[in-house]
């Protein structure tokens, strides 16, 4: 149902209802009009301060050739309707604050409200990025100390905080690799990644100017070391690994892998998406990695914001430190902080200093959690994930049913064969049960994959409820009836037609016909 178009009974000629809440699931399941439908000519919300600045006209200020002709339509809406509209949209949105979010590889832990407040402090939020170091000592100290703590957590030497997300960190890391090899006189051409790797890895490899070489996983779900050795030669710039890998399994041969890669002069890149699993237990630096990115929006409680912003700092071993992007905050003997660009820096990778307020949030989380707390995080995350894998034994296929780290991958392959239950159906049906879906169809090497990462902030009771819900879905499938195939029905919209979206592309309100 689209909202009522206005009836001629009244005199109101224009627009859709503004104050109606029928799209808020607390009362209904209607479509929420767009802000363009809510627009009415001449309506406004803006309010600017009184400045007493002379009121020159546009013509006096801008050469005619540059002036926009006619009106640039944005939308015309009252503050009341603006607030109503976006509040209703939030009621149509799942979030961590509403319930569990066991989305594998995403580490959707609870983000403490404390960190929101910390990042909102005016002394942080109102600092201009070009302000001189003397006037931003607090910021430089925060960033400098954060970099230091991240190095201690990862076992690395120095870090850049500029990359605004994991993928940006990857590309930064690959350019560091490139600069290093170039300095060694031989740029090399290939980077190895496992077949279980996240899509950003190969995409970054391409942008780093390298060719992607895939190494298969072995039957245990880990890098096939023999196959890796076959692929290693002195044209290999390095290897990118996630450890634990995307199956949630610890690469036990990591020391051997590191030695083999180093032997051909390659570098090891650590994709830190799964760092939550090993906090305080082991460190990428100890495993032999040369370059590490972290997703602060996974491990360090920066909320995901519906898709960002995050922060993807990159830490490196001592030999790569001179190549890091700059400028970086450094503390002088007098305690004063200043900006410094490393000697052989690859250059900037962000307009300014990275996603500073996201970095501040992560910093406050690390301050509050501390060293012991971070170890506790990993323990509880790994405990939850192992408990859940045990609990689901016999319910779903577990292609790699052995001790996992912070996440594990189940599969509906058997249930699909026997009862037609696909991974996507489990995902959709689980929404009705009050849980966000796991990651589905990833990693690519598992058929009908359900990648489940409970995180440490969910309680044992939540674990049990999630397990019971997943079990219920499997039982329903076995009982027949195909409930899951038509799920979800209790959500603001039913299953969404993704194919139609691509076929009949409507990327903006103005593209509708």
């Amino acid at each position, binding site marked *: 149902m689209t909202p009522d178009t206005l009836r001629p009974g009244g005199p109101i000629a224009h627009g859709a209802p503004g104050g109606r809440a029928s799209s808020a699931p607390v009362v209904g399941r209607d479509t929420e009009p767009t802000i363009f439908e809510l627009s009415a000519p001449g309506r406004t*919300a803006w309010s600017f301060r009184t400045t007493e600045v002379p009121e020159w006209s546009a013509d006096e200020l801008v050469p005619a050739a540059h002036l*926009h002709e006619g009106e640039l339509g944005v939308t015309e809406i009252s503050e009341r309707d603006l607030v109503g509209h976006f509040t209703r949209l939030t009621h149509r949105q799942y979030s961590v604050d509403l319930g569990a979010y066991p989305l594998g590889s995403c580490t959707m832990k609870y983000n403490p409200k404390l960190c929101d*407040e910390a990042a909102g402090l005016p002394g942080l939020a109102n600092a201009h990025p070009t302000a001189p170091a003397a006037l931003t000592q607090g910021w430089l100290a925060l960033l400098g100390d954060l970099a230091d703590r991240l190095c201690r957590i990862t076992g690395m030497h120095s870090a850049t905080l500029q990359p605004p997300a994991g993928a940006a960190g*990857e590309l930064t890391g690959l350019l560091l690799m490139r600069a290093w090899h170039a300095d060694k006189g031989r740029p090399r051409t290939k980077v190895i990644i496992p077949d279980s790797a996240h899509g950003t890895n190969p995409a970054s490899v391409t942008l780093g100017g390298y060719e992607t070489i895939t190494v298969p996983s072995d039957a245990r779900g880990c890098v096939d070391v023999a196959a890796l050795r076959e692929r290693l030669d002195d044209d290999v710039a390095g290897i990118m690994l996630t450890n634990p890998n995307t199956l949630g399994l610890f690469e036990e041969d990591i020391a051997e892998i590191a030695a083999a890669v180093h032997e051909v002069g390659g570098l090891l890149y650590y994709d830190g998406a799964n760092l939550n699993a090993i906090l305080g237990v*082991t460190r990428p630096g100890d495993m032999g990695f040369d370059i590490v990115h972290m997703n602060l929006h996974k491990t360090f409680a920066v909320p995901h914001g519906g898709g*960002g912003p995050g922060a993807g700092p990159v830490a490196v071993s001592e030999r790569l430190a001179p190549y890091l992007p700059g400028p970086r905050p450094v503390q002088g003997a007098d305690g004063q902080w200043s900006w410094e660009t490393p000697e052989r820096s690859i250059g900037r990778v962000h*307009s300014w200093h990275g996603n500073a307020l996201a970095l501040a949030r992560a910093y406050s989380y690390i301050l509050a959690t*501390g060293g012991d707390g971070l170890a506790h995080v990993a323990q509880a995350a790994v405990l939850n994930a192992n408990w859940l894998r045990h609990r689901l034994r016999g319910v779903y296929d577990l292609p790699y049913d052995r*001790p996992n780290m912070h996440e594990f991958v189940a599969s509906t392959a058997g249930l699909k064969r026997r009862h037609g239950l696909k991974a996507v159906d489990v995902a959709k049906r689980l929404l009705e049960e009050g849980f966000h879906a796991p990651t589905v169809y990833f990693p690519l090497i598992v058929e009908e994959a359900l990648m489940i990462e409970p995180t440490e902030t969910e309680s044992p009771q939540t674990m049990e409820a999630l397990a019971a819900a997943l079990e219920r879905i499997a039982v329903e499938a076995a009982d027949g009836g195909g409930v899951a195939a038509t799920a979800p029905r209790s959500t603001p919209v039913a299953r969404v037609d993704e194919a139609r979206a691509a076929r009949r592309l409507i990327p903006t309100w103005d593209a509708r016909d």
Partner: protein
Amino acid sequence: MPDYIPHTEAETAEMLSFIGLSSLDELFDAVPAALRLAGGLDLPGGLSEPDTSAEMGRLAGANAAADLICFAGAGAYDHEIPAAVRSLASRSEFVTAYTPYQPEVAQGVLQALFEYQTLISRIAGVPVANASLYDGASACVEAVNLAVAATRRETVWVSQGVHPNWRAVMRTFAAGTGHDLVEIPLIDGVTAWPGGDIGANTTSGEEPAAVLLQYPNYLGCLEDVEAAVATARRRGALVLVAFDPVAAGLLRTPGSYGADVVVGEGQPFGTPMSFGGPYLGLFACTMEHVRRLPGRLVGETLDTEGRRAYVTTLRTREQDIRREKASSNVCTNQTLIAVTCAIQLAWLGTSGLRELALRCARGTRYAREALLAIDGVEPLVSAPVLREFAVRLPVAADVVVERLAEEGFLAGAPLAGEEYGDGLLVAVTERRTRAQIDDYVAAFEKAVR
């Protein structure tokens, strides 16, 4: 120490026993002993919440810059953020959701992004916009990548009027892609696009894939976009325009000039200066290039019951599906900042956006005239400006910044000497009152004496 973990000791023991273990340590048996961290992390213990707040407050308090009346711009502007926008954008459903992988429970973020895309497409003047990139710099990088992919040419002409930091980032990433970025200098504030033979202008001697310019440019000047478009058309190159979305309240849209790709920095709409991030990379283009669009795109569709619904679409461009052949590696983007931008733009609305640009331009004119009346303060270039301008000073710019800070002002952004000559870039937003400007000018006069 609040570690935010619910498990009680009894529960932990219960769970361990269920999985057949007797200690938490055993959970990590897969980690070889040689790699195990003895003695734990070399980090201080956790602080209580109030102690953490106090420490964060101490650091925040050590940024005198945050209290200054701001006349700095250079890509980061001190605009008003209304309470309604702050309140809506901080709703926890927007803040704590992941990327909308399950559209049935993510219509809130998806519709907000759809509206964002529409708004950006309208002010950019081209029909499609993506769901955000990291910042102005990354948007430029992606525009170049798109142009190279579209034209199969390797060279891009980049105006020196483009933000120096953005160009720096482009250079960094060009080391990976191997693109040849040729910088085209300004003459008196406006890009001097080469007219004749191209041989002399590029290392490869190739025709460019695209020209990239900023409008208004880094020095605040109104570029001759028509000349850039003509240059590009003549050479079969695309036109990439980095625009100022605030200036768009008065200026012609890049699309109306013929831009193929429009990029920009979205910080001015609802995001505080934040020491430079998180900001918002705006990216919009013509329909011709939609299948090369970097990042996420939300489209309208239907659900199985025929209701209007939104979903991320054309996903085959993206890294998780196309992997090494993806149009970009971007995954996490700046969604919350994009949603904030949409809310702020809707709050401004048609007349408010124009009014905003007008107020910035008026303050700029007023401040510029007053500064130029000071002995020894000269315009750096003569091209017309809108909301930012560069001046040459009788004293080093950073000294002026230092002196004005003592008077309570952030004087501006000093220009890096090599390219533009020494000077100061001054921006005036709608937040600056006449009294503030007068005081600033008076302090300035003393500072340059």
